[in-house]
Protein backbone atom coordinates (compact mmCIF):
# COMPACT_ATOMS: atom_id res chain seq x y z
CA UNK A 1 0.00 0.00 0.00
CA UNK A 2 2.87 2.36 -0.70
CA UNK A 3 5.53 3.96 1.40
CA UNK A 4 6.38 7.42 2.71
CA UNK A 5 8.93 9.51 0.87
CA UNK A 6 10.19 13.01 1.57
CA UNK A 7 9.58 14.98 -1.62
CA UNK A 8 9.22 18.57 -2.60
CA UNK A 9 6.50 19.47 -5.10
CA UNK A 10 8.81 19.24 -8.09
CA UNK A 11 10.14 15.81 -7.12
CA UNK A 12 6.60 14.62 -6.41
CA UNK A 13 5.70 15.63 -9.97
CA UNK A 14 8.77 13.81 -11.31
CA UNK A 15 7.89 10.69 -9.29
CA UNK A 16 4.40 10.69 -10.80
CA UNK A 17 5.63 11.25 -14.38
CA UNK A 18 8.15 8.44 -13.90
CA UNK A 19 5.58 6.04 -12.46
CA UNK A 20 3.17 6.85 -15.31
CA UNK A 21 5.90 5.54 -17.63
CA UNK A 22 6.59 8.55 -19.82
CA UNK A 23 8.66 7.55 -22.84
CA UNK A 24 9.76 10.92 -24.24
CA UNK A 25 10.75 14.03 -22.30
CA UNK A 26 11.38 17.41 -23.86
CA UNK A 27 11.85 20.06 -21.21
CA UNK A 28 13.55 23.41 -20.90
CA UNK A 29 14.60 24.46 -17.41
CA UNK A 30 13.16 27.61 -15.84
CA UNK A 31 13.02 28.70 -12.19
CA UNK A 32 11.22 27.34 -10.18
CA UNK A 33 10.54 24.36 -12.47
CA UNK A 34 14.25 23.58 -13.12
CA UNK A 35 14.57 20.69 -10.71
CA UNK A 36 11.83 18.85 -12.63
CA UNK A 37 13.75 18.92 -15.92
CA UNK A 38 17.04 18.23 -14.13
CA UNK A 39 15.74 15.27 -12.12
CA UNK A 40 14.10 13.73 -15.19
CA UNK A 41 17.41 14.04 -17.06
CA UNK A 42 19.20 12.37 -14.16
CA UNK A 43 16.71 9.48 -14.06
CA UNK A 44 17.10 8.89 -17.80
CA UNK A 45 20.89 9.10 -17.54
CA UNK A 46 20.99 6.60 -14.67
CA UNK A 47 18.68 4.23 -16.51
CA UNK A 48 15.99 4.49 -13.84
CA UNK A 49 13.56 5.84 -16.40
CA UNK A 50 13.44 4.23 -19.81
CA UNK A 51 12.74 7.32 -21.86
CA UNK A 52 14.25 9.49 -24.57
CA UNK A 53 15.28 12.93 -23.30
CA UNK A 54 15.27 15.64 -25.95
CA UNK A 55 17.24 18.75 -25.06
CA UNK A 56 15.39 21.66 -26.57
CA UNK A 57 16.25 25.33 -27.00
CA UNK A 58 12.94 26.77 -25.85
CA UNK A 59 9.56 25.97 -24.35
CA UNK A 60 7.93 26.43 -27.75
CA UNK A 61 10.00 23.50 -28.98
CA UNK A 62 9.55 21.57 -25.73
CA UNK A 63 5.80 21.53 -26.25
CA UNK A 64 6.11 20.90 -30.00
CA UNK A 65 8.29 17.84 -29.37
CA UNK A 66 5.96 16.58 -26.67
CA UNK A 67 2.96 16.84 -29.01
CA UNK A 68 4.81 15.08 -31.83
CA UNK A 69 6.14 12.36 -29.56
CA UNK A 70 2.78 11.60 -27.98
CA UNK A 71 1.23 11.37 -31.45
CA UNK A 72 3.44 8.32 -32.07
CA UNK A 73 1.55 6.52 -29.31
CA UNK A 74 3.56 7.04 -26.10
CA UNK A 75 3.19 9.31 -23.08
CA UNK A 76 5.39 12.37 -23.47
CA UNK A 77 6.33 14.76 -20.69
CA UNK A 78 7.32 18.35 -20.29
CA UNK A 79 6.96 20.96 -17.55
CA UNK A 80 7.35 24.70 -17.28
CA UNK A 81 6.68 27.95 -15.44
CA UNK A 82 5.78 31.57 -16.06
CA UNK A 83 7.23 33.05 -19.27
CA UNK A 84 8.05 29.50 -20.35
CA UNK A 85 4.35 28.71 -20.36
CA UNK A 86 3.70 31.98 -22.20
CA UNK A 87 6.19 30.93 -24.87
CA UNK A 88 4.27 27.65 -25.23
CA UNK A 89 0.99 29.49 -25.79
CA UNK A 90 0.77 28.78 -29.52
CA UNK A 91 1.53 25.09 -29.14
CA UNK A 92 -0.72 24.64 -26.09
CA UNK A 93 -3.64 25.40 -28.38
CA UNK A 94 -2.25 22.99 -30.99
CA UNK A 95 -2.06 20.17 -28.42
CA UNK A 96 -5.61 20.84 -27.32
CA UNK A 97 -6.97 21.10 -30.87
CA UNK A 98 -5.23 17.88 -31.91
CA UNK A 99 -6.78 16.23 -28.83
CA UNK A 100 -3.36 15.07 -27.59
CA UNK A 101 -3.91 14.28 -23.91
CA UNK A 102 -0.58 15.46 -22.53
CA UNK A 103 -0.21 15.90 -18.78
CA UNK A 104 2.05 18.78 -17.79
CA UNK A 105 3.09 20.04 -14.36
CA UNK A 106 3.17 23.84 -14.36
CA UNK A 107 5.01 25.48 -11.49
CA UNK A 108 3.13 28.72 -10.95
CA UNK A 109 5.25 31.85 -11.20
CA UNK A 110 4.45 35.45 -11.96
CA UNK A 111 4.69 36.79 -15.52
CA UNK A 112 7.10 39.58 -16.45
CA UNK A 113 7.22 42.53 -16.18
CA UNK A 114 8.49 43.29 -13.50
CA UNK A 115 10.71 40.21 -13.50
CA UNK A 116 9.93 37.90 -10.66
CA UNK A 117 10.85 34.34 -9.82
CA UNK A 118 8.02 33.94 -7.37
CA UNK A 119 4.57 32.51 -7.14
CA UNK A 120 1.28 33.80 -8.40
CA UNK A 121 -1.25 32.45 -10.89
CA UNK A 122 -0.84 34.90 -13.76
CA UNK A 123 0.92 32.32 -15.93
CA UNK A 124 -1.76 29.64 -15.86
CA UNK A 125 -4.64 32.13 -15.76
CA UNK A 126 -3.33 33.59 -19.02
CA UNK A 127 -3.81 30.07 -20.49
CA UNK A 128 -7.27 29.42 -19.13
CA UNK A 129 -8.80 29.52 -22.60
CA UNK A 130 -6.10 27.42 -24.28
CA UNK A 131 -8.20 24.27 -24.18
CA UNK A 132 -6.36 22.57 -21.32
CA UNK A 133 -7.80 21.08 -18.17
CA UNK A 134 -6.36 22.89 -15.13
CA UNK A 135 -6.04 21.25 -11.71
CA UNK A 136 -4.59 23.23 -8.77
CA UNK A 137 -2.76 21.57 -5.84
CA UNK A 138 -2.96 22.34 -2.14
CA UNK A 139 0.04 20.37 -0.89
CA UNK A 140 2.80 18.07 -2.12
CA UNK A 141 0.74 14.87 -1.76
CA UNK A 142 -1.81 16.58 -3.99
CA UNK A 143 0.85 17.18 -6.65
CA UNK A 144 1.64 13.49 -6.88
CA UNK A 145 -2.00 12.40 -6.78
CA UNK A 146 -3.17 15.03 -9.27
CA UNK A 147 -0.56 14.15 -11.90
CA UNK A 148 -1.51 10.48 -11.63
CA UNK A 149 -5.25 11.20 -11.83
CA UNK A 150 -4.74 13.71 -14.65
CA UNK A 151 -3.58 10.91 -16.97
CA UNK A 152 -6.82 9.03 -16.44
CA UNK A 153 -8.92 12.14 -16.96
CA UNK A 154 -7.04 13.57 -19.96
CA UNK A 155 -6.70 10.26 -21.80
CA UNK A 156 -10.30 9.13 -21.36
CA UNK A 157 -11.74 8.61 -24.87
CA UNK A 158 -14.65 10.93 -24.04
CA UNK A 159 -12.27 13.67 -22.90
CA UNK A 160 -9.03 13.60 -24.97
CA UNK A 161 -7.98 16.95 -23.58
CA UNK A 162 -4.52 17.86 -22.25
CA UNK A 163 -4.18 18.71 -18.58
CA UNK A 164 -2.03 21.12 -16.58
CA UNK A 165 -1.33 20.26 -12.98
CA UNK A 166 -0.63 23.62 -11.35
CA UNK A 167 1.61 23.79 -8.30
CA UNK A 168 2.60 26.99 -6.57
CA UNK A 169 6.22 28.02 -7.12
CA UNK A 170 8.35 27.58 -3.98
CA UNK A 171 5.34 27.18 -1.65
CA UNK A 172 4.89 23.72 -3.20
CA UNK A 173 7.69 23.24 -5.74
CA UNK A 174 10.36 23.62 -3.06
CA UNK A 175 8.45 22.66 0.09
CA UNK A 176 9.65 19.33 1.45
CA UNK A 177 6.75 17.25 2.72
CA UNK A 178 5.90 13.65 3.54
CA UNK A 179 4.24 11.93 0.58
CA UNK A 180 2.63 8.49 0.51
CA UNK A 181 3.82 6.98 -2.77
CA UNK A 182 1.91 3.89 -3.98
CA UNK A 183 3.74 0.84 -5.35
CA UNK A 184 4.52 0.77 -9.08
CA UNK A 185 2.07 -2.12 -9.70
CA UNK A 186 -0.74 -0.11 -8.14
CA UNK A 187 0.00 2.86 -10.38
CA UNK A 188 0.32 0.58 -13.42
CA UNK A 189 -3.12 -0.86 -12.71
CA UNK A 190 -4.64 2.58 -12.15
CA UNK A 191 -3.06 4.51 -15.03
CA UNK A 192 -2.80 1.68 -17.57
CA UNK A 193 -0.94 1.54 -20.87
CA UNK A 194 -1.16 4.52 -23.20
CA UNK A 195 -3.03 4.05 -26.42
CA UNK A 196 -3.32 6.78 -29.04
CA UNK A 197 -7.06 6.74 -29.73
CA UNK A 198 -7.42 9.65 -32.11
CA UNK A 199 -4.64 10.83 -34.42
CA UNK A 200 -1.55 8.67 -34.73
CA UNK A 201 1.77 9.28 -36.41
CA UNK A 202 2.91 6.08 -38.03
CA UNK A 203 5.37 5.98 -40.98
CA UNK A 204 3.71 2.79 -42.22
CA UNK A 205 0.34 4.50 -42.38
CA UNK A 206 0.99 8.19 -42.97
CA UNK A 207 -1.75 10.75 -42.37
CA UNK A 208 -1.81 14.52 -42.51
CA UNK A 209 -2.16 16.18 -39.12
CA UNK A 210 -2.93 19.83 -38.38
CA UNK A 211 -3.65 20.72 -41.98
CA UNK A 212 -5.36 23.92 -43.08
CA UNK A 213 -9.04 23.38 -42.26
CA UNK A 214 -11.89 25.29 -43.83
CA UNK A 215 -14.62 27.18 -41.95
CA UNK A 216 -16.91 24.32 -42.95
CA UNK A 217 -15.44 22.10 -40.24
CA UNK A 218 -13.74 24.14 -37.54
CA UNK A 219 -16.86 25.15 -35.62
CA UNK A 220 -17.81 21.49 -35.25
CA UNK A 221 -14.27 20.53 -34.22
CA UNK A 222 -14.30 23.23 -31.54
CA UNK A 223 -17.69 21.94 -30.44
CA UNK A 224 -16.11 18.52 -29.99
CA UNK A 225 -13.47 20.09 -27.73
CA UNK A 226 -16.20 21.74 -25.69
CA UNK A 227 -17.88 18.34 -25.39
CA UNK A 228 -14.57 16.95 -24.13
CA UNK A 229 -14.65 19.50 -21.31
CA UNK A 230 -18.27 18.68 -20.52
CA UNK A 231 -17.39 14.99 -20.34
CA UNK A 232 -14.30 15.74 -18.27
CA UNK A 233 -16.58 16.71 -15.37
CA UNK A 234 -18.22 13.29 -15.33
CA UNK A 235 -14.90 11.49 -15.83
CA UNK A 236 -13.24 13.47 -13.03
CA UNK A 237 -15.96 12.35 -10.65
CA UNK A 238 -15.42 8.72 -11.65
CA UNK A 239 -11.63 8.92 -11.48
CA UNK A 240 -11.65 10.70 -8.09
CA UNK A 241 -14.01 8.03 -6.76
CA UNK A 242 -11.84 5.16 -8.00
CA UNK A 243 -8.70 6.85 -6.67
CA UNK A 244 -10.28 7.24 -3.23
CA UNK A 245 -11.28 3.59 -3.16
CA UNK A 246 -7.81 2.41 -4.17
CA UNK A 247 -5.59 4.86 -2.31
CA UNK A 248 -7.82 6.20 0.46
CA UNK A 249 -7.44 9.87 -0.36
CA UNK A 250 -10.64 11.70 -1.15
CA UNK A 251 -10.53 14.32 -3.91
CA UNK A 252 -13.19 16.55 -5.37
CA UNK A 253 -13.46 19.17 -8.08
CA UNK A 254 -14.31 21.72 -5.40
CA UNK A 255 -13.85 21.03 -1.72
CA UNK A 256 -15.99 22.74 0.91
CA UNK A 257 -14.46 23.09 4.35
CA UNK A 258 -16.87 23.85 7.22
CA UNK A 259 -19.20 25.50 4.72
CA UNK A 260 -22.49 23.88 5.80
CA UNK A 261 -23.47 26.51 8.37
CA UNK A 262 -21.05 29.23 7.31
CA UNK A 263 -22.34 32.76 6.75
CA UNK A 264 -19.17 33.79 4.92
CA UNK A 265 -16.90 31.58 2.81
CA UNK A 266 -13.53 32.30 1.22
CA UNK A 267 -12.85 30.70 -2.18
CA UNK A 268 -9.23 29.93 -3.05
CA UNK A 269 -6.95 28.06 -5.46
CA UNK A 270 -3.68 26.25 -4.75
CA UNK A 271 -1.41 26.29 -1.71
CA UNK A 272 -3.24 29.15 0.03
CA UNK A 273 -6.22 26.81 0.41
CA UNK A 274 -4.56 25.03 3.36
CA UNK A 275 -3.90 28.35 5.05
CA UNK A 276 -7.57 29.27 4.47
CA UNK A 277 -8.69 26.09 6.28
CA UNK A 278 -6.33 26.83 9.14
CA UNK A 279 -7.69 30.36 9.49
CA UNK A 280 -11.29 29.09 9.31
CA UNK A 281 -10.60 26.75 12.26
CA UNK A 282 -9.00 29.59 14.17
CA UNK A 283 -11.89 32.01 13.51
CA UNK A 284 -14.48 29.35 14.35
CA UNK A 285 -12.88 29.10 17.81
CA UNK A 286 -13.56 32.81 18.18
CA UNK A 287 -17.21 32.29 17.19
CA UNK A 288 -17.20 33.44 13.55
CA UNK A 289 -19.31 31.26 11.27
CA UNK A 290 -16.88 31.07 8.36
CA UNK A 291 -15.84 28.41 5.88
CA UNK A 292 -13.48 27.82 2.96
CA UNK A 293 -13.95 26.44 -0.53
CA UNK A 294 -11.01 25.15 -2.53
CA UNK A 295 -11.43 25.05 -6.29
CA UNK A 296 -9.37 22.09 -7.56
CA UNK A 297 -10.51 22.03 -11.18
CA UNK A 298 -10.47 25.52 -12.69
CA UNK A 299 -10.98 24.08 -16.18
CA UNK A 300 -13.56 22.64 -16.49
CA UNK A 301 -15.01 24.99 -13.87
CA UNK A 302 -17.24 23.04 -11.47
CA UNK A 303 -20.05 25.59 -11.21
CA UNK A 304 -22.76 23.12 -10.18
CA UNK A 305 -20.68 21.64 -7.37
CA UNK A 306 -19.57 25.11 -6.25
CA UNK A 307 -23.20 26.22 -6.09
CA UNK A 308 -23.93 23.29 -3.76
CA UNK A 309 -20.88 24.00 -1.57
CA UNK A 310 -21.85 27.67 -1.23
CA UNK A 311 -25.58 27.01 -0.91
CA UNK A 312 -25.93 28.35 2.62
CA UNK A 313 -23.39 31.16 2.54
CA UNK A 314 -24.75 34.70 2.17
CA UNK A 315 -21.32 36.18 1.56
CA UNK A 316 -18.49 34.88 -0.58
CA UNK A 317 -14.95 36.27 -0.67
CA UNK A 318 -12.97 35.16 -3.71
CA UNK A 319 -9.20 35.48 -3.38
CA UNK A 320 -7.34 35.56 -6.69
CA UNK A 321 -3.58 35.29 -6.91
CA UNK A 322 -3.65 37.25 -10.17
CA UNK A 323 -4.78 40.68 -11.32
CA UNK A 324 -7.50 40.45 -13.94
CA UNK A 325 -6.57 43.88 -15.32
CA UNK A 326 -9.47 45.81 -16.74
CA UNK A 327 -12.03 43.10 -15.99
CA UNK A 328 -14.95 43.41 -13.59
CA UNK A 329 -13.03 41.20 -11.21
CA UNK A 330 -10.17 38.71 -11.23
CA UNK A 331 -10.60 35.37 -13.08
CA UNK A 332 -11.64 33.12 -10.19
CA UNK A 333 -14.12 35.77 -9.02
CA UNK A 334 -15.67 36.00 -12.51
CA UNK A 335 -16.27 32.25 -12.49
CA UNK A 336 -17.66 32.17 -8.96
CA UNK A 337 -19.85 35.21 -9.51
CA UNK A 338 -21.44 33.78 -12.64
CA UNK A 339 -21.95 30.40 -10.96
CA UNK A 340 -23.99 31.89 -8.12
CA UNK A 341 -27.38 33.52 -8.08
CA UNK A 342 -27.78 37.24 -7.55
CA UNK A 343 -28.77 37.08 -3.87
CA UNK A 344 -25.28 36.42 -2.62
CA UNK A 345 -22.67 39.05 -2.03
CA UNK A 346 -19.56 37.95 -3.97
CA UNK A 347 -16.51 40.15 -3.60
CA UNK A 348 -13.24 40.01 -5.51
CA UNK A 349 -9.97 40.09 -3.55
CA UNK A 350 -6.49 40.21 -5.05
CA UNK A 351 -3.39 39.22 -3.11
CA UNK A 352 -0.30 37.04 -2.95
CA UNK A 353 1.20 38.44 -6.15
CA UNK A 354 4.75 37.57 -7.25
CA UNK A 355 5.65 35.67 -4.11
CA UNK A 356 4.00 37.93 -1.54
CA UNK A 357 2.92 35.54 1.18
CA UNK A 358 -0.78 34.80 1.52
CA UNK A 359 -0.49 34.89 5.28
CA UNK A 360 -3.03 33.94 7.90
CA UNK A 361 -3.74 37.65 8.30
CA UNK A 362 -4.43 38.08 4.58
CA UNK A 363 -7.09 35.36 4.74
CA UNK A 364 -8.52 36.62 8.02
CA UNK A 365 -8.63 40.19 6.72
CA UNK A 366 -10.55 39.09 3.63
CA UNK A 367 -13.07 37.16 5.75
CA UNK A 368 -13.49 40.03 8.23
CA UNK A 369 -13.89 42.47 5.35
CA UNK A 370 -16.62 40.46 3.62
CA UNK A 371 -18.49 40.04 6.91
CA UNK A 372 -18.55 43.82 7.29
CA UNK A 373 -19.29 44.56 3.62
CA UNK A 374 -22.65 46.29 3.14
CA UNK A 375 -22.51 47.28 -0.54
CA UNK A 376 -24.34 44.98 -2.95
CA UNK A 377 -21.71 45.55 -5.64
CA UNK A 378 -18.40 46.11 -3.89
CA UNK A 379 -15.24 46.99 -5.81
CA UNK A 380 -12.28 44.64 -6.05
CA UNK A 381 -10.08 44.89 -2.97
CA UNK A 382 -6.30 44.41 -3.04
CA UNK A 383 -5.81 42.90 0.39
CA UNK A 384 -2.08 43.09 0.95
CA UNK A 385 -1.07 46.48 -0.45
CA UNK A 386 1.68 48.19 1.52
CA UNK A 387 2.02 51.92 2.17
CA UNK A 388 0.95 54.27 -0.59
CA UNK A 389 1.21 52.14 -3.73
CA UNK A 390 1.13 55.14 -6.09
CA UNK A 391 4.33 56.51 -4.61
CA UNK A 392 6.39 53.42 -5.40
CA UNK A 393 9.00 53.68 -8.15
CA UNK A 394 7.43 56.71 -9.79
CA UNK A 395 9.31 57.68 -12.91
CA UNK A 396 10.31 61.33 -12.70
CA UNK A 397 11.15 62.81 -16.08
CA UNK A 398 13.80 65.47 -16.72
CA UNK A 399 14.48 66.24 -13.09
Amino acid at each position, binding site marked *: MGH*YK*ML*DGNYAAVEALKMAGVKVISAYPIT*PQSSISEKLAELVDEGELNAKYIRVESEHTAMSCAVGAQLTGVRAATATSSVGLALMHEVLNVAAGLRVPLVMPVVNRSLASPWS*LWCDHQDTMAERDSGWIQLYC*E*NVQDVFDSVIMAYRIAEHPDVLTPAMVCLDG*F*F*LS*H*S*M*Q*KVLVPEQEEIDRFVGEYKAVNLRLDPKDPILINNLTSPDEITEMKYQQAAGFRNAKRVMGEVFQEFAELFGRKKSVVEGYRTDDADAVIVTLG*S*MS*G*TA*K*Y*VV*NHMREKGYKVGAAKVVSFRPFPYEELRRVLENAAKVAVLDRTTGFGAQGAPLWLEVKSALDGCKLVKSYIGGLAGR*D*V*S*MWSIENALMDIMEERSAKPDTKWIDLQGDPMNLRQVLMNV
Partner: protein
Amino acid sequence: MRRLKFYGLGGQGVVTAGKTLSTAVSIYDGKYAITVPAYGHERRGAPVYTDIVVDEEPILANCFVYEPDIVLVMDDSIIEKNVDVAKGKRHDTALVLNTRNPEVAEMYANEFGFNKVFYVDATQIAIDCIGREIPNGPMLGALAITGIAPIEAIENALKDIFGERAGEKNAKAARKAYEQVKEI
Protein backbone atom coordinates in the same frame (compact mmCIF):
# COMPACT_ATOMS: atom_id res chain seq x y z
CA MET B 1 2.12 23.13 16.23
CA ARG B 2 5.66 24.47 16.52
CA ARG B 3 7.13 27.00 14.11
CA LEU B 4 10.81 27.39 13.46
CA LYS B 5 12.97 29.92 11.67
CA PHE B 6 16.54 29.07 10.61
CA TYR B 7 18.91 31.96 9.84
CA GLY B 8 22.37 31.71 8.34
CA LEU B 9 24.60 32.72 5.48
CA GLY B 10 24.53 31.39 1.91
CA GLY B 11 26.68 28.24 1.77
CA GLN B 12 26.05 27.15 5.36
CA GLY B 13 23.32 24.75 4.35
CA VAL B 14 20.36 26.58 5.86
CA VAL B 15 17.82 25.27 3.35
CA THR B 16 19.25 21.74 3.58
CA ALA B 17 18.97 21.92 7.36
CA GLY B 18 15.26 22.69 6.96
CA LYS B 19 14.79 19.69 4.69
CA THR B 20 16.73 17.48 7.09
CA LEU B 21 14.63 18.49 10.08
CA SER B 22 11.50 17.96 8.01
CA THR B 23 12.71 14.42 7.21
CA ALA B 24 13.66 13.70 10.83
CA VAL B 25 10.22 14.70 12.07
CA SER B 26 8.17 13.17 9.22
CA ILE B 27 9.94 9.89 8.60
CA TYR B 28 11.75 9.09 11.87
CA ASP B 29 9.40 10.57 14.44
CA GLY B 30 6.03 9.78 12.84
CA LYS B 31 4.85 13.39 12.86
CA TYR B 32 4.38 15.99 10.14
CA ALA B 33 6.56 18.83 8.94
CA ILE B 34 6.70 21.19 6.01
CA THR B 35 9.46 23.53 4.91
CA VAL B 36 8.49 26.97 3.62
CA PRO B 37 11.61 28.03 1.78
CA ALA B 38 12.28 31.66 0.95
CA TYR B 39 14.43 31.63 -2.16
CA GLY B 40 15.81 34.98 -3.21
CA HIS B 41 18.86 36.40 -4.91
CA GLU B 42 21.16 33.99 -3.07
CA ARG B 43 24.89 34.12 -3.19
CA ARG B 44 27.54 32.67 -0.95
CA GLY B 45 27.81 34.69 2.25
CA ALA B 46 24.52 36.56 1.93
CA PRO B 47 21.95 36.18 4.72
CA VAL B 48 19.39 33.42 4.08
CA TYR B 49 16.55 31.97 6.09
CA THR B 50 14.07 29.15 5.88
CA ASP B 51 10.90 28.31 7.78
CA ILE B 52 9.76 24.94 9.09
CA VAL B 53 6.44 24.00 10.68
CA VAL B 54 6.13 20.83 12.79
CA ASP B 55 2.94 19.25 14.12
CA GLU B 56 1.38 16.00 15.32
CA GLU B 57 -1.32 16.46 12.66
CA PRO B 58 -1.02 17.07 8.89
CA ILE B 59 -0.17 20.74 8.47
CA LEU B 60 -2.74 22.96 6.79
CA ALA B 61 -1.19 26.43 6.86
CA ASN B 62 1.34 26.92 4.06
CA CYS B 63 2.70 30.39 4.68
CA PHE B 64 5.81 31.93 6.20
CA VAL B 65 6.55 31.80 9.92
CA TYR B 66 6.02 35.19 11.55
CA GLU B 67 6.02 34.19 15.22
CA PRO B 68 8.62 31.46 15.67
CA ASP B 69 8.72 29.14 18.69
CA ILE B 70 12.33 28.33 17.92
CA VAL B 71 14.96 30.44 16.17
CA LEU B 72 18.14 28.75 14.97
CA VAL B 73 21.11 30.92 14.01
CA MET B 74 23.94 29.26 12.07
CA ASP B 75 26.33 32.22 12.23
CA ASP B 76 26.68 34.70 15.07
CA SER B 77 27.87 37.43 12.67
CA ILE B 78 24.42 37.60 11.10
CA ILE B 79 23.46 40.61 13.23
CA GLU B 80 26.13 42.63 11.41
CA LYS B 81 24.15 42.09 8.20
CA ASN B 82 20.99 43.87 9.31
CA VAL B 83 19.09 40.68 10.04
CA ASP B 84 16.70 40.89 12.99
CA VAL B 85 16.68 37.33 14.33
CA ALA B 86 14.30 38.43 17.11
CA LYS B 87 11.56 39.42 14.66
CA GLY B 88 8.21 37.99 15.82
CA LYS B 89 9.78 36.53 18.98
CA ARG B 90 7.49 35.85 21.92
CA HIS B 91 8.46 35.60 25.60
CA ASP B 92 9.08 31.83 25.40
CA THR B 93 10.78 31.66 22.00
CA ALA B 94 13.97 29.60 22.23
CA LEU B 95 17.19 30.54 20.45
CA VAL B 96 19.74 27.95 19.32
CA LEU B 97 22.94 29.77 18.41
CA ASN B 98 26.18 28.73 16.78
CA THR B 99 28.96 30.57 18.59
CA ARG B 100 32.24 29.69 20.23
CA ASN B 101 31.96 32.62 22.57
CA PRO B 102 29.61 32.35 25.59
CA GLU B 103 29.70 36.16 25.85
CA VAL B 104 28.17 36.43 22.38
CA ALA B 105 25.42 34.06 23.52
CA GLU B 106 24.86 36.31 26.56
CA MET B 107 24.72 39.32 24.27
CA TYR B 108 22.06 37.63 22.08
CA ALA B 109 20.07 36.81 25.22
CA ASN B 110 20.26 40.34 26.59
CA GLU B 111 20.05 42.48 23.48
CA PHE B 112 17.34 40.46 21.73
CA GLY B 113 15.54 39.46 24.91
CA PHE B 114 15.51 35.70 24.36
CA ASN B 115 14.65 34.05 27.67
CA LYS B 116 15.87 30.67 26.54
CA VAL B 117 19.23 30.50 24.76
CA PHE B 118 21.18 27.37 23.79
CA TYR B 119 24.61 27.69 22.24
CA VAL B 120 27.28 25.45 20.82
CA ASP B 121 30.46 25.85 18.75
CA ALA B 122 29.01 24.05 15.74
CA THR B 123 31.62 25.39 13.34
CA GLN B 124 34.48 23.84 15.33
CA ILE B 125 32.56 20.55 15.62
CA ALA B 126 32.00 20.61 11.85
CA ILE B 127 35.71 21.16 11.24
CA ASP B 128 36.61 18.32 13.64
CA CYS B 129 34.04 15.77 12.48
CA ILE B 130 33.37 16.64 8.84
CA GLY B 131 36.50 18.52 7.86
CA ARG B 132 34.47 21.41 6.46
CA GLU B 133 33.16 24.62 7.96
CA ILE B 134 29.51 23.80 7.27
CA PRO B 135 27.65 23.91 10.58
CA ASN B 136 24.19 22.68 9.58
CA GLY B 137 24.62 19.04 10.71
CA PRO B 138 25.87 19.85 14.21
CA MET B 139 23.35 22.69 14.59
CA LEU B 140 20.52 20.20 14.01
CA GLY B 141 22.04 18.03 16.74
CA ALA B 142 22.02 21.01 19.09
CA LEU B 143 18.42 21.74 18.07
CA ALA B 144 17.38 18.32 19.43
CA ILE B 145 17.85 19.78 22.93
CA THR B 146 14.61 21.74 22.41
CA GLY B 147 12.70 18.46 22.02
CA ILE B 148 11.59 19.27 18.48
CA ALA B 149 12.86 15.83 17.35
CA PRO B 150 14.85 13.05 19.03
CA ILE B 151 18.60 13.14 18.30
CA GLU B 152 18.33 9.64 16.78
CA ALA B 153 15.75 10.92 14.26
CA ILE B 154 18.08 13.76 13.32
CA GLU B 155 21.03 11.38 12.91
CA ASN B 156 18.95 9.14 10.62
CA ALA B 157 17.71 12.08 8.56
CA LEU B 158 21.27 13.39 8.13
CA LYS B 159 22.29 9.98 6.76
CA ASP B 160 19.36 10.11 4.32
CA ILE B 161 20.05 13.61 3.09
CA PHE B 162 23.85 13.53 2.93
CA GLY B 163 24.31 9.93 1.78
CA GLU B 164 26.38 7.26 3.48
CA ARG B 165 29.83 8.75 4.08
CA ALA B 166 29.04 12.44 4.58
CA GLY B 167 25.90 11.36 6.43
CA GLU B 168 27.86 9.35 9.01
CA LYS B 169 30.19 12.29 9.63
CA ASN B 170 27.28 14.72 9.95
CA ALA B 171 25.43 12.37 12.28
CA LYS B 172 28.53 12.12 14.46
CA ALA B 173 28.86 15.89 14.48
CA ALA B 174 25.18 16.23 15.38
CA ARG B 175 25.57 13.84 18.31
CA LYS B 176 28.63 15.73 19.52
CA ALA B 177 26.83 19.08 19.36
CA TYR B 178 23.84 17.56 21.15
CA GLU B 179 26.18 16.52 23.98
CA GLN B 180 28.06 19.82 24.08
CA VAL B 181 25.20 22.30 23.74
CA LYS B 182 24.84 24.59 26.77
CA GLU B 183 21.99 26.68 28.05
CA ILE B 184 22.48 30.17 29.44
